[in-house]
């Protein structure tokens, strides 16, 4: 199977996965207690107003009718209308998605950039102060809760030094602290993985052969070592995308970025079903596409991989 066929097959596979996601999210949301109309109108409302609003929002119909009507609309790329915000979900998604994507994509790139550099350094200078300090930092990076790191960075760079804004969005300066906060934990993972993977590769015979041929160490490490060491790191990429979206929820709340994560949390608390469904579908699609990208890259880096 060619890589093109593989990509097409993966894209087609997205459909049943997404249907599964909608069933799960729809089921969970409707099974747990919590009534959006009650939350919207408050406790003090009259029964008549409650019934009227329920009818207006179509929530009085049987669950399966609501589900299939939702599914039908999704096939036409109509995500419905937010129960609480009274706005088309597609419009809300279009407004928030760029904020979340810019955050997560930058976070991904930065975490890989930092992680690979520190991982290679630690592996090449194994058991030296560079190795110990890189790995020490990596352990701190993995252990520190993101919201706390975010507050520390705000305190230092925004409140004390006034170099960057505390919170908000719209300019590159607003993106710096959230991206750094989001990427440090991920960078730590990548660094640890790079180090161990590279150390394993450099012990292989072909690397020894490359050295024996008299190749310069830099070429040995980057051309022969790192390229092969990257395979598990690329596998990590698929997992990292989901992890970054999870982290983005916290980051968006701390740094006041109106993104999908924050909207999802608010929607869950208010039982705003169409918004929860819409955001979940978008996130699921992105994570699936990310994983597919990781698989394709896997083949690019390692031509031995057959699909």
């Amino acid at each position, binding site marked *: 199977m060619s890589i093109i066929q593989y990509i097409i097959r993966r894209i087609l596979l997205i459909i049943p996965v997404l249907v599964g996601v909608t069933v799960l999210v729809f089921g969970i949301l409707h099974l*747990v*207690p*919590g*009534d959006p109309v*009650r*939350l*919207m*109108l*408050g*406790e*003090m*409302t*009259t*029964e*008549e*107003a409650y019934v*009227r*609003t329920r009818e207006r929002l179509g929530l009085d119909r049987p669950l399966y009718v609501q589900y299939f009507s939702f599914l039908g609309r999704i096939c036409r790329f109509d995500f419905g209308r937010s129960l*609480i*915000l*009274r*706005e088309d979900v597609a419009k*809300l998604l279009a*407004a*928030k998605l760029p904020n979340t994507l810019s955050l997560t994509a930058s976070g991904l790139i930065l975490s890989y950039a930092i992680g690979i550099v520190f991982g290679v350094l630690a592996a090449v200078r194994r058991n030296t102060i560079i190795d110990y300090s890189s790995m020490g930092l990596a352990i701190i990076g993995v252990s520190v809760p993101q*919201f706390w790191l975010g*507050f520390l960075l*705000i*305190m230092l760079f*925004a*409140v004390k030094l*006034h170099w960057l*804004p*505390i*919170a908000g969005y719209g300019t590159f300066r607003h993106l710096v602290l959230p991206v750094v906060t989001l990427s440090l934990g991920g960078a730590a993972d990548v660094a640890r993985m790079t180090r161990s993977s590279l150390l394993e590769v450099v012990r292989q015979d072909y690397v020894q052969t490359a050295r024996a041929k008299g190749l310069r160490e830099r070429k040995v490490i980057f051309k022969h070592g790192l390229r092969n060491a990257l395979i598990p790191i690329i596998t990590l990429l698929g997992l990292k995308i989901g992890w970054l979206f999870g982290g983005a929820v916290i980051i968006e*709340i*701390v*740094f*006041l970025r*109106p993104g999908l994560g*924050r*909207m999802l949390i*608010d929607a*869950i*608390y*208010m*039982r705003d079903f169409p918004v929860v469904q819409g955001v979940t579908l978008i996130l699921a699609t992105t994570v699936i596409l990310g994983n597919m990208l990781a698989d394709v890259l896997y083949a690019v880096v390692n031509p031995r991989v057959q699909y």
Partner: protein
Amino acid sequence: MQSKRIVAYVVFFVGLMLVFSSLITVAQAPDRATKEANSTTLVIAIDQDPQNLNTITTSWGGEMNRDICDTLVSRDYQLTYQDGIAESWDVSSDGLEWIFRLKDGVTFHDGTPCDAEAIAWNIETMRDTGASAYLYSAVEDAVAVDPLTVKLILKNPFPNLLYNMSSSGFASIISPTAFEKYGEDYGVKAAVGTGPYMFVEWVKGDHVTLKRNPDYSWGPSWMENQGPAYFETVIYKVVPEAVTKAMLIQAGEVDVVYYVSPAIVSTLQADSNVEVILSPERRLVYMGMNVTKAPFDDVRVRQAMCYIVDREAIVENVLGGIGMPAYNYLAPIVEPQIESPYTYDMDKARELLAEAGWTDEDDDDIIEKDGKEFRVTLWTDTITERVQIATVLQNQMAELGIKAAIQQFDSAAYGDMFKTGNQQAFMRLYGWDNADILEWFFNSTRIDRGVNKTRTNEPLLDFMFKKAESMPTSEERLSVYRLLHEYLLERAPWVPVYYPQQVRARGSDLAGYNATLDHIWLLDLYRK
């Protein structure tokens, strides 16, 4: 010669004093032009987006609603009813007819007049289709007698009408023309009232922007400024995170924080650029009990629970002093206040439990009755303070030999759980500044909806509530509520624990800060 010199000295000193006093006067009260020049943009941090700015379809229109819309009647700092859009009002001796005389020249932001027709439309639309229809449920008819006079004909006397009319979040007067024009989009893309600020935009999850209404000249008489507000633009910024809010106000990026978490009060108090304002509240945190389910179906057991709470210690140690011990069911600012019999007395609690038949027969540190151990589930939402209080109560119960398990629910699920009737004991908070809250929570008609969470069902109470709400005067209404409050305390369906304090913060460069229980008034506010 000598006298001339004395006169010269006197003239000099008097002149000097005049200059100083005029300087001081200027420093104390700058004129409107100076205030407006200094006050360009005001940023206010709020916890969450408004649900909707359409108060007809939503019961909570957000903090900015009071700036966009006026109410017919206002309530001043002493909670006295004062003028709003209505200049004055009269009520007939039988309490069935109310006449409201409107201020002349009041217009909506869309240019339409806020006349008697508009007021009658607001009242009738809310009564017939509104989310808070109960506000005007006693109104039979609203008639525009002339452009500046509205007559309300009531089905029964309802002295609480003025309170309902002054509720900023519920009873805002909106433009009927705008309501019709925008349809479904009203409250999201437009909100049109007569208030000192006009709606500009609402970016969901981020901010609501308002701009000054330059034509405003009908502010309540109890405010210093009745004309246009001083700040040109007001931005309500949604900041859900408590620490982010603190850092924003410390850095001067936010001017006012509506709700300050008790956890960050001391940090803000230490900052000279920030002023923390602690004021009494209208909220009560309590533990409720299901009076239809054992073991709380026995009034002696419920009374025992009222004695196990060391409220002073809770306020001091759990809340860091930010709160007040609560002994009865109404906030301290709400009448009628009743002296509660329940103090912290574990011996008394033990005595009452023993009287109800609960004793530790097998020495296993759990009390039993008819061979059944005293085990309860205490429900709570996930708000940190409430979980902490639940844990304290759990420990106190353990001292009496009661095994309590805590079960937490997210806020959306929590409200719905009460409809099941499975609750035994539960932590809860309400915020209201009127005695009718007792009717709300203990009237048997609201059991099925999960509002009457203790599932109290006493025909006598229902009768008394009905009586109280239809008394011809406020005084008579209060006297019935006094009896009701006393009776409820004796029946002990709730264990009142504490009144949270209202904590707000503002930049110290602001002056003219005035706030009532539910709103920070922007009319007098300016930057120094």
